[in-house]
């Protein structure tokens, strides 16, 4: 425990993501406050999980943090830049460059093969040449032990394999933070553990920040910090 704290203190230097008084309402069918006064921050190299009962607003919070949901009050800062009231186009650039996603369901594009799926956000960012991106994508797939499947179509893969491809895709642009919405929710124990191990390696080796919404108490227990939510508030 002390070792973990030490590690945290070392990395305290850089705050990746920060929120100030975020409130969100649902209007349909009646006005209803989903999130109230969310204040939180995530540092570089921190592995954070969000837990809570169904409907407590944890996914809603994640989508606000991911910049895909812009209908909220309060302020969201990623990498020191306030993202509140930015345009759709600017937010897309932020998502592309700084945020990697892993969803509960794989969400790979069935039109492309595995390699191209991994490369796509890199091609969109266009910071490197296609050859470099391809090289990088192969590297990621190698680390995740998926090189053999690189030219297969996504629907030829198993659930665990798809999730590994999704992680490789999330990593292609070296994002500041990786967000996951129950990335292991659809996987069996073995695959679940494997995904956790991959995440853990990322934190250790690349000092990557991770924010994972999960239902799985075992998974949450093994992360650095757990944010517990209930009725739209952070309670712990």
């Amino acid at each position, binding site marked *: 425990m002390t070792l973990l704290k030490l590690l945290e203190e070392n990395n305290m230097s850089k705050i990746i993501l920060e929120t100030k008084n975020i409130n969100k309402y649902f209007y349909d069918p009646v006005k209803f406050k989903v999130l109230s006064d969310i204040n939180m921050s995530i540092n570089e190299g921190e592995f954070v999980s969000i837990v809570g009962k169904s409907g407590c607003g944890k996914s809603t919070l994640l*989508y606000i943090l991911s910049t895909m949901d812009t209908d909220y009050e309060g302020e969201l800062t990623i990498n020191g830049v306030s993202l509140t009231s930015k345009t759709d*186009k600017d937010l*897309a650039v932020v*998502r592309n460059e700084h945020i990697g996603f892993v969803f509960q369901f794989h*969400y*790979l594009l069935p039109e492309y093969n595995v390699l191209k799926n991994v490369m796509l956000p890199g091609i*969109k960012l266009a910071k490197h040449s296609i050859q470099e991106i391809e090289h990088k994508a192969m590297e990621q797939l190698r680390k995740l032990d998926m090189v053999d499947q690189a030219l297969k179509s996504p629907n030829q893969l198993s659930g665990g394999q798809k999730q590994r491809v999704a992680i490789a895709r999330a990593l292609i642009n070296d994002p500041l933070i990786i967000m996951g919405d129950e990335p292991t929710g659809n996987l069996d124990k073995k695959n679940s553990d494997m995904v956790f191990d991959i995440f853990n390696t990322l934190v250790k080796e690349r000092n990557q920040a991770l924010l994972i919404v999960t239902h799985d108490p075992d998974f949450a227990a093994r992360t650095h910090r757990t944010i517990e939510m209930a009725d739209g508030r952070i309670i712990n």
Partner: protein
Amino acid sequence: MNAKLIIDIAVNLIRARLKQSIVAAVGVTFGIAMFVTLLGFMNGLNNLLDGLMLNRTPHVRLYNEVKPSPDQPVLISKEYKNNTNFIQSIKPKDRGREIYNSKAIINILKQDKRVIDVAPKVTAPVFFNTGSIEITGVVNGIDVPAEEHLFKVSDYIIEGNVFDLNNESNTIIIGKGLAEQMLVKVGDVIKITTIKGGLVSLKIVGIIQIGIAEIDNTMSYTSLRTAQMLLGESASYITDIQVKLTDVMMSPETAKEYRAKFGIDAIDAQTANSQFETGSNVRSIISYAVGITLLIVAGFGIYNILNMMIYEKMDSIAILKATGFSGNDVKWIFISLSLIIGIVGGLFGLLFGFGLSSIIDNIPFETSSLPTIKTYPIDYKYTYYVIGFTFAVCTTTIAGLFPALKASKIDPVEIIRGK
């Protein structure tokens, strides 16, 4: 780079739904092919029918019209100058039908840069005598080389040779209907009475058929000299000067100019054949309307297919947005998708349209009234192809625009959470 990626994604979406995309493209292909063929065929026919009349009509014809003098004596009188004068029972002035100073006018016209050539003509109403029957008709005295140059008379000669009019004196070429009525053939001699009472014998050297019965039943051609002799006039007697211009569209203004310049009457081809122009325009409008309708129907097909595709591809759209594609990027993906369908379908449409036109162009179409026509006429004007293609691209873009806007507004959160 970005555009390349967007097109790449569009192409992959098409590949994933190849069958539907082909159906959409075939809709466009069919529309364009029919549009091009229809317009080509319709305008081929138009040109043929216009040619029947317009090729035989001078762009500008100079002549003396039978009309009253514009300067009546009472108007010249100083005494009644400020009065309002009513004159009744005015008769046209006898100025003769001869164009005065015709040689000089022809010389000036020939030097005009807008003029291709000038053909002088003498027309005279006559009676053709056969037995005790007299048939009314018209003799056109023509300058054979000039007439041939301007109006391709030889195209309509079904027997004999038009140049024989110059080679032999006292010769005539008569209309087919006339020959049938009088039961005469090439080599026979016919008698003609002029309205002044003179009687002349002329040898038939040819039969002509324009394809319009009314004309073929009354018309005949002689050389200029023979016609002048028939009327007992000198070699300078000319009743019409026919002018062909480099640009037929200029004829109304040119006619106006000549009217003022030479002080004689001038009529342009458009005025003389206004009913033909109207017919052509109406036919063109109908074929454009049908063609455009076909393309719009094809546009609805694309709209439907793209809409369906967007519902199927919701997940893909959401993932694209989550990984950093903006709404605008997604919109362009679907617009390029429909543009690709439009362009590919359109190009094939032009190809098939051209093929179909060529087939029609080779179908035999023989009619006794049109001796020069052997197959159905087709107009291969490139503008139809340009219009067709442009319209195809426009319709498909518009058809793709609405689904594309819809796709750009899809909220990825809803789709990802909805699972």
